[in-house]
């Protein structure tokens, strides 16, 4: 655990730095508020889909991307331990990883063909 101590120190310092900077603005900056300044940025007509904070919804394509990301991220995460010990595992490891990748490849082909990767 000792080897993580510098990392922890750095984290504390970086977070303190960020906190300090974030607090600096309101401390030394001027405050001359009026109602127009506090409105959300808009141009033209008020848009009808509201942001989520106001009860709006998010396009479904983003959920799809997020789910695909999780799938492939997990694939990636499994590839790292394989890569580290690939030489020790030899051919067996290769066969297993090819099987693993191609199993995901089936799903990938499906998503591709059904337009899950298309944006328009």
């Amino acid at each position: 655990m000792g080897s993580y101590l510098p990392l922890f120190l750095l984290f504390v310092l970086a977070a303190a730095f960020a906190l300090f900077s974030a607090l600096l603005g309101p401390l030394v900056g001027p405050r001359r508020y009026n109602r127009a300044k506090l409105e959300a940025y808009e141009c033209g007509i008020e848009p009808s889909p509201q942001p989520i904070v106001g009860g709006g919804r998010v396009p479904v394509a983003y959920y799809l991307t997020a789910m695909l990301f999780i799938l492939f991220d997990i694939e990636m995460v499994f590839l790292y331990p394989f890569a580290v010990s690939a030489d020790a595992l030899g051919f067996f490891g290769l066969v297993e990883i090819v099987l693993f990748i191609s199993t995901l490849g089936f799903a990938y082909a499906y998503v591709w063909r059904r337009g899950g990767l298309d944006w328009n």
Partner: protein
Amino acid sequence: MSALVTAISLAQDPPAKETLAPIDYGAIMPMLIILGAACLGVLFEALLPRHQRWSAQVALTLLALVGAGVTMAFYIADAPADGTLTLAGAIAVDRPALFLWGTLLALALGAVLMIADRTVEPGGAFVAQAAIRPGTVQDREQRLGAHPDRRDGARFQMQTEVFPLTLFALGGMMVFCSANDLLTMFIALEVLSLPLYLMCGLARRRRLLSQEAAVKYFLLGAFASAFFLYGLALLYGYAGSVRLADIANAAAGSDRSDTLLFGGMALLIVGLLFKGSVGPFHAWTPDVYQGAPTPLTGFMAACTKVAAFGGILRVLSVGLESTQWEWRGIMWGVAIVSMIIGAVLGLTQTDIKRMIAYSSIAHAGFLLIGAIVLTPDGLSSTLFYLLAYGFTTVATFGVISLVRDADGEATHLSQWAGLAKRSPLVAGVFTFLLLALAGIPLTSGFIGKFVVFSAALSDGMAPLVVIALIASAVAAFFYLRVIVLMYFSEPAPDGPTVTVPGAFTTASITLGVVVTLLLGIVPAFALDWADAGTFALR
């Protein structure tokens, strides 16, 4: 993240060459065939044009089921009598597992035939595009056929993804029955559940009801999975291993705190009982059975129950056998509650699918009696009961899907009045199936109940058997009520019609009825199979 870090830091200093235990491919081949075919099915979905998909998928699915059955038959011929452990001890292929696999494959064959049928409901019971919102123009078009000039097969589409999904669920069930450690069991539980949640929401008719069922099933199922996982974690904390045999050893001879053991056991069993729809963990059952597409309800009711009780049997007799005096009393209670809920609430139902759902809860209670008798007799009788119940259920839902009116299936009991006058054959078949569910002699249901109750009696559970007999009698009443309704009532003028099914559904119902009859008349061969061996206790 931290798990990953550990995994990688473990991989830091690998030995020169890993030595890996050989895998017994012959033993797990049926499983591999089913899961491989499911992957191939996904690829079919991706690559084939839409009009070829249905035929390709049906052919692939049936081939996979038959292929898995044949390889299993070859394997059984020279399988070791006390089973074999493979995949580093994660999978136990023993006699009960093989019996359950065979049951699952045969039941899935019946269910897949029903799922594939496109004659009863034009285009099949599954919707073409589930993402379309119910009630919109597009929804009406896909339900009623958008292009009247095209022939029926092309006019009505269905979501052919249901075939690979069914195979995935089936593969998960097979792994579930033979999982020798709790972690494998959990993965299998998820693999079998997720496709089912999804398919529940794909009914062509009554889409909102179907989607509601899917969401309910998903939410409650997720809870149950969480229970299972939490129980797993506690048991791991207790025994330091997720292997069932290790947990049994730890429980048999240790002075460790029992809190973890009992807490883990309770949560684990709750998760399993949920899947088996045993009361009081049955809340999802009626709604889901009612909302899901009927062929899928058949698949779910039969195969999920087989898988779940396969898992319960293995966990109870391999993992928790040494602590049976602690949990037995509670399981008595659960079985009684389940039988009473099923029998009493079944009486009040007016929808035939919900009625069968409550019947399945009552049956789950009977099955649980067999499952807590930890003798070889208890095991074999429960296995036999599962086989018998599964076939009867598949055929029952097959028949239910035939009675239709303009809005789809006519599931309200009042609509079934006088059905015998419209279609004596269907009424006769349904009567036979209901009698089997009630447990009348000459049907498989009678033999099933008989062997389970006698095994329980010989293990000293006479009070439980008495309660079970009373519950069967109460349950028989609501089966008989339907029979009376069909035969001794005047049909309503605007009542439903009985669809003449195509080859697939006919084959499926015939299979179910014939097996129900055979197991009722000559049960010996199946009883012998079920009695061939016990779980591999390693």
